[in-house]
């Protein structure tokens, strides 16, 4: 499905993904250039969400490959369905049908496709999300950038498979370690940061329809203040902001006051060190004051 920049921009707002013009443009360019998009940024700014949103926009399935230490090609690319092959051998032994058993056993029927192969062999253009690529090992990263540069995969028993439609690939990284230059070179780079105040307000409104303007603004300002505080290590993410807002709504709060903040702040700050730091340096009173002042 070909899309113009304007159509992509409209689609983003249609599915409720609110972002800067630059983000839309970078995604647009990556799609046009047939290059993977490498998204970096702090946790909880919508990196993974981008994959889901693109799948929705392009009306295709989201193929997801979650990276972790020890992930290998078998888990990412393909495996032979050993059990099924074995059954086939047993059956043919009993029925006496031996003709070209070997060719049969290594046919696509017995192939268990893992995310990468699935994305490549699909007839339709797919969205492939390779999540937290910084968590995988370097060997796997090297293998990955080989696949991502020419979108071909070789399965020894079947030969080389070339992508019919080059998938839209999203790689996300939390920068737990520096990715190799080779992989970066093949990608278009996008850095997602926490949203600006106005954008955060827009996001809350889009995700929680019917919320009051005053509360929205106060929530956004409070979250911004927490993110800017140097004492808080794990900054509240957008998802946490939304959870917090929903909790406030459930408590029928129409504005932030010290009591409400103190009851619900653990939805935003999730470690003891951060909660201690919050109580010592900021406190529910100051935070609600900061949120109230425009």
């Amino acid at each position, binding site marked *: 499905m070909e899309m113009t*920049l304007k159509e992509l921009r409209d689609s983003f707002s249609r599915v409720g993904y609110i972002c800067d013009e630059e983000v839309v443009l970078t995604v647009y360019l990556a799609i046009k250039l047939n290059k993977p998009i490498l998204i970096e940024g702090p946790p909880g700014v919508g990196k993974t969400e981008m994959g889901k949103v693109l799948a929705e926009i392009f009306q295709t399935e989201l193929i997801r490959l979650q990276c972790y230490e020890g992930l290998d090609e078998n888990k990412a690319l393909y495996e032979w369905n050993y059990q099924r092959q074995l059954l086939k051998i047993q059956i043919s032994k009993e029925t006496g049908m031996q003709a070209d058993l070997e060719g049969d056993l290594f046919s696509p029927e017995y192939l268990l496709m893992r995310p990468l192969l699935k994305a490549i062999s699909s007839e339709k253009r797919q969205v492939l999300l390779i999540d937290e690529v910084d968590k995988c090992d370097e060997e796997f990263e090297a293998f990955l950038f080989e696949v991502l540069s020419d979108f071909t995969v070789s399965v020894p028993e079947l030969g080389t498979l070339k992508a019919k439609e080059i998938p839209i690939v999203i790689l996300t990284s939390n920068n737990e370690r520096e990715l190799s*230059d080779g992989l970066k070179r093949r990608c278009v780079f996008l850095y997602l940061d926490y949203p600006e105040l106005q954008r955060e307000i827009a996001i809350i409104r889009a995700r929680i329809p019917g919320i009051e303007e005053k509360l929205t603004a106060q929530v956004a300002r409070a979250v911004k203040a927490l993110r800017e505080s*140097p004492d808080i290590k794990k900054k509240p993410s957008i998802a946490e902001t939304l959870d917090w807002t929903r909790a406030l709504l459930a408590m029928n709060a129409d504005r932030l006051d010290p009591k409400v903040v103190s009851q619900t702040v653990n939805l935003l700050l999730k470690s003891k*060190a951060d909660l201690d730091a919050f109580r010592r340096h900021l406190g529910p009173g100051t935070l609600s004051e900061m949120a109230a002042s425009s």
Partner: protein
Amino acid sequence: MKEAHCDRSVPRENTLEANILRFILLLRQAGVRVSSSEALDAVKALTLVDLSQPSQARAALRGTLVKKAADLALFDRVFAMFFAPEEERLQRLGAWQEQKGLHRQKMQEAGRDLEFLGKQLSMTEQEMTVYANMPEQEKDRLKNYMDKTAGGKNVEEPFRPLLESVVKGSLSYWRKQLKEDLDLTPPPDTGDEELDSILAQAEGTGTGGRRGVSLLQEDMQNIPERDLPRARIILGKLAQQLINSISRRYRQSRRHQKLDLRRTIRENLQYGGTPFRLKYKSRRQQKPRLLLLCDVSGSMARYSSFVLQFIYSINTVVSHIESFVFAEHLEIITPHFARRQEFDATMVEIINKSRQWGGGTSVAAALQELQEKYEVVLKGNTVVIIVSDTKTTNLERALEELGRLRRRVKDVIWLNTLAEGERESLRTARLIGEEVRMFPCNTLADLEDIVRKKVLS
């Protein structure tokens, strides 16, 4: 960085490609790594956007040329200057030419002043810059001294080396004195004056202006107070990445594993002996056990702020790391981290309880104590990280203990906080470096290097 392959033959025509090439050259000179394939991508991307809108052109170049979050701010600055309105560019160029002229003049004067018997003394460019920036009074004193020497009886050419070393000694003293406000990096010289003017401004360097050394390249003990919070954040991140790279557990892929026959047969009895479910001997590698030893003696005092941040950051990522501080003796500090307090609170507690801060250093005693009292943590999978400037008493015994420790554990890694020049010249550093793997750790850039090159994994 400056001497990086600068292609002086970049065409100066006013086409899109030529401008992009110039811009890429500028980025490279500013320290952003841009490969040719990325340059091609950038040109392709520009054909897809509406060039009449600067924001679109910017996004296209940003996404294709910059692949490191830390470089984005630099890119934005350079982009704004390179694609600024004509008037602003001319103004900057003018200012730059004037500044450069002034610098040249100063250097020429310095050259004339530093003469002996009608011939210039052999001085490096840095030394000349130091001279040019010395207070006038001091310049006069040095000049007087040289004049007197030259005017003495029977003074001939063989005196030159002697005089040179005296002058160099004085300049090296002044270099240290002027440290804060002296810029010793040579002004950018790409052969394209406009690019030079942008580079000078983007990096905050200029001829004789504020030093352009970034926080990363600065000796950690010299980082000014106001930059500390930022430096601490960077250090914290690097420490975490470092630990991640060491403690990563690699599991071997299934292909290299061995079939566990006993378990396979037992598992498959239920299928009538057909090997339906294969069982492998899993050889999961254990995560290495980390042990951190930090020198907090007097000579390390000025690094202590960073050493503390380093210990703290590491302890917040990995909970099973044993941490020690040492000077004359060894002290375990792991329990202080168990309560998961904030940085300041934890550190105050450690400093108050510890008796090691600012003492003399005895690596030997510390290592001996470690091996005697804490034997239980020294296993075959232990990696010991020592942060120290190697200045220790009783070097011979320290080396002996270090050797003994090395044989007991998986690896001993020494992060050396000595500055570049000292590192090579100090005997202790040299000898310890022969005994264990040693990496320079004087600046944040050094630490970044250790993390990036993955020397530890």
